[in-house]
C-alpha cells in the first residue's frame, strides 16, 4: 500500500487570501509514514498551508506536489483522507452518522456502480474505530462537537487512505474524544500511514507526532522534533504571562497575614 513517493512537496509556496499574503514562501516535504503536526499561533497560516498542499486553495507563487503530481493533475484521491475542522451542517437537512461515514468511500466508488459489500464493511469498521457504531442511525445534528469530530474522522477512515490530513482535530473537543483520537491515530501511524495535522496544542497527540512544523507569519520557523514537554509554551508567539511552576503555588488558603 505505501509507496516510496513523497506525499507532499511544496517549494517556495505562497498563498494570498483577499490580497493579503498568508504563506510567504514555504518549503516543506512530507514522506510516507511520517506523523507531522503543523503548529503555530492563530492566523499563522496553518489551515491555509494544509489546504494549499491539497490544492484546495491556489498558490500565488511556488509549486506544490501531491504524490509527485500537481494537485490539478492528481488522480489517486483515494490515497487522501481529509478531515475538515467542522462538520458543515449546511441547510440542516438531517443526515445519519452512517450516511456521512459511508460517503468517505466516494473516491473508491465508480459512478453507476452500486455500494459494494467492501464499502459497507469499511464503513462498519470506521464507525467501530471511533466508538459510534451503536449510534450509526442517529442524525449527526444531535451530536456534541467532539462526537461530530469523530464522525468526520470516521469518514476519512472509511476511505482507507494512505495519508490523513486533519485540520485542528482537537480544537473544541472534550478530553475523552481527544484520547480516543490519539489511540486511533497511533494505530494508523503503526500501520505506516502518513498523518499531517494542524493543531493549536498537541495535548494527548504529542507522543505519536514524529515531527513538528511551526509556522509564524507565513514562514516555517521550526521544522524538526516536536517541542516536547514544554508543549505549546515553547512556541513563538505564545504569551508567557502566567506564573512559573517553581513559584510558590498561591491559593486563597495560603494567605497569611504578614506579621
Amino acid at each position, binding site marked *: 500500500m505505501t509507496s516510496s513517493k513523497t506525499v507532499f512537496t511544496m517549494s517556495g509556496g505562497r498563498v494570498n487570501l483577499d490580497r493579503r499574503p498568508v504563506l510567504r514562501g514555504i518549503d516543506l516535504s512530507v514522506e510516507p509514514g511520517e506523523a507531522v503536526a503543523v503548529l503555530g499561533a492563530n492566523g499563522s497560516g496553518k489551515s491555509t498551508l494544509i489546504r494549499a498542499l491539497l490544492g484546495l486553495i491556489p498558490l500565488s507563487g511556488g509549486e506544490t506536489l501531491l504524490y509527485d503530481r500537481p494537485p490539478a493533475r492528481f488522480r489517486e484521491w483515494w490515497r*487522501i483522507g481529509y478531515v475538515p475542522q467542522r462538520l458543515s451542517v*449546511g*441547510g*440542516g437537512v438531517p443526515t445519519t452518522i452512517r*450516511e*456521512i461515514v459511508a460517503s468517505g468511500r466516494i473516491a473508491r466508488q465508480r459512478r453507476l456502480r452500486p455500494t459494494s459489500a467492501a464499502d459497507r464493511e469499511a464503513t462498519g469498521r470506521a464507525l467501530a474505530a471511533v466508538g459510534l457504531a451503536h449510534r450509526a442511525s442517529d442524525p449527526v445534528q444531535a*451530536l456534541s462537537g467532539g462526537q461530530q469530530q469523530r464522525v468526520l474522522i470516521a469518514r476519512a477512515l472509511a476511505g482507507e487512505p494512505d495519508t490523513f490530513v486533519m485540520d485542528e482535530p482537537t480544537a473544541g473537543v472534550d478530553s475523552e474524544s481527544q484520547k480516543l483520537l490519539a489511540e486511533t491515530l497511533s494505530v494508523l501511524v503503526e500501520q505506516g500511514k502518513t498523518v499531517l495535522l494542524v493543531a493549536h496544542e498537541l495535548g494527548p497527540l504529542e507522543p505519536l507526532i514524529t515531527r513538528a512544523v511551526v509556522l509564524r507569519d507565513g514562514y516555517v520557523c521550526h521544522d524538526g522534533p516536536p517541542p516536547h514537554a514544554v508543549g505549546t509554551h515553547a512556541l513563538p508567539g505564545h504569551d508567557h504571562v502566567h506564573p512559573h511552576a517553581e513559584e510558590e503555588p498561591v491559593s486563597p488558603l495560603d494567605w497569611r497575614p504578614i506579621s
Partner: protein
Amino acid sequence: MIELLQFDFMRRALIAALLVGLVAPAIGTFMVQRRLALLGDGIGHVALTGVALGFLTGTAPVLTAVLVSVLGAVAIELVRARGRTSGDVALALLFYGGIAGGVLLISLAPGGSNATLTSYLFGSISSVPVEDVWVIGLLAAAVLGVLVVFGRELYVLSQDEEVARASGLPVRFLSLLIAVTAALTVVIAMRVVGLLLVSALMVVPVATSQQLTRGFTSTMLLSMLFGMISTVGGLTSSFYVEVPPGAVIVIVALTGFVLALGLGRFIRRSRPQESTP
C-alpha cells in the same frame, strides 16, 4: 376521484402534477442542504423571459423557457462560485432582470400582453396540452436520471465542497449539474404551480419531511411523497371548488409543514432520550 379521470384534461393534469410532485422535492433536498433554497425562485424569474421569448419568436414557450432558464442557472452558479460575497445580490439582479425582460419581450410579441404571462406566473395545469405532458415526462426522467447516477457525489458536494474536492470529485461540473437540474425542474413545475410558486414545491416538502426524519435519503424520499400528495391533493380539490390549483397545491404543502412541525415535536419527545457523553 374516479370521475376526475373521465376528463382528458384532468388525466393530463394529474400526470403532470404527479411528475412535478415527485421531481421538485428530490432536487430540492440538495438545494436546501446547499443553502440554495432561493435558487428555484431566481431561475423561475429568469424562465419568464424565456416564456416571453417563445411567444415573440413563435417557438414553443416550454422549450425557450428550458433554454433561457438553463443559461440563467449556469450564470447564477458561476457568479456564486466566483464571488464570495455577492451571491445574493447576483440572484437579486437576475430576479429583476428576468421579470423585466419577460414583460418587455411579451409586449413586443404579436398579440402578447401581460395576461399571456399570467398563466405561466400562476400556473394553468388544467390546460396542459398533450405535447407539454410529454416534455414534462422527458424532463422528469432526465432529472431523476441525474439523481440516480450522480446522487452519491451530489451528497458529498452538498455536505462539504472542500471535502468533495479533496475526494477528487468534479466540483464545478457537479455544481453546474445541480443548477441545470434545478432549471429543468423549474420549467416542469411552471405549468403546474406557476413560476412564482415553483420554489415552494422544491423547498416546502423538504422542510416538512425533515421534521420527521433522521437521514438524508429518508428525507428525500419522504419529501417526494409529500410533494406528490400536495400536487395531486391540491389539483383534486381545485376540481371540486373553483380555485386556482397552483395556489391550493402550495397551501396544501404548507398545511402539511405545520402538521409535521407539531408531529415532529411529539415524536422527538416520545423517543427515548439519547445519552450524549
